[in-house]
């Protein structure tokens, strides 16, 4: 029953928060409206999400968010330096193929997003069976290092979270 009413409890919670943030004022009426949205939207959209995403370790997820935020700042500075101070012909762009250990769509999505936002890399495309991800690297002389970095720093943590 509860499962039917709340097919995606995390999404419901998220919607309440986003609604409260959008109106920018926390009043009982707003929270009620947010709660109604939080129930209705997942109910209506549940056919598109057959599997319920599970967060096994929310604490790890918070740490992950902080790490990624920090890495975004670092990556910003690195890319800015490359753009400003490297000559065009000194920028060695390379493709890196990262084999994936995670199999479900949610961690892969998060990983692809993280790769794009962080260290000088953009995730381009998945292989057809979702077993590796093709990453474009703006400037590197050590493609294997980039791959190991992504696997060590992000994928290992995502495997623990989901």
């Amino acid at each position, binding site marked *: 029953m509860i499962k039917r009413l709340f097919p995606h409890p995390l999404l419901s919670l998220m919607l309440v928060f986003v609604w409260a943030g959008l109106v920018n004022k926390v009043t009982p009426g707003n929270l009620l409206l947010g709660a109604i949205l939080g129930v209705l939207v997942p109910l209506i959209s549940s056919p598109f999400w057959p599997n319920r995403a599970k967060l096994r370790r929310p604490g790890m997820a918070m740490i992950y968010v902080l790490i990624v935020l920090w890495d975004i700042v670092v990556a910003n500075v690195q890319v800015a330096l490359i*753009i400003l101070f490297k000559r065009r012909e000194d920028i060695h762009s390379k493709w890196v193929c990262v084999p994936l250990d995670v199999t479900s769509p949610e961690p892969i999505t998060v990983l692809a997003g993280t790769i794009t936002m962080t260290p000088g890399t953009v995730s381009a495309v998945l292989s057809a069976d979702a077993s590796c991800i093709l990453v474009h690297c703006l400037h590197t002389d050590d493609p294997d290092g980039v791959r190991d970095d992504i696997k060590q720093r992000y994928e290992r943590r995502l495997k623990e979270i989901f």
Partner: protein
Amino acid sequence: MDTLAQIELEPWAEYLVCFLLVVGGLFGIVGSFGLIKLTDTLQRLHAPTKATTLGVGGVLLASISYFWLAEHVITFHELLITLFLFLTAPITANFIAKTYMARNMPPSDVPQTEGDYGWSIYDDPPPPPRHSSHGATPSRD
């Protein structure tokens, strides 16, 4: 205009807000400059997905700290903008990269996958596992 002019900030608070605005502006400029300087589409993707994040982030932080220091209200709009930006920027970049590759790059230009199937823009996904078998999760793009 009047309401804005009446609010007086402490000098240090003013410096903080100015600093954040300048940092944000600098990264915005660098991101846009990258679009001119870098040579091919895939390289150009890097500039707006990264350098601009901190550009927008700086302006948002400046906005948060201004309203907090001057009017003592904590606004959540900026946090939501950050959230939406982090959701949309990678997806846009991914779509642009895929479209570019599908239209302009033959499969021989990119490295091989390490699995049995090729990249999803060139190859069909494996058939869904009907009878219990090995088979990885079907790709969902």
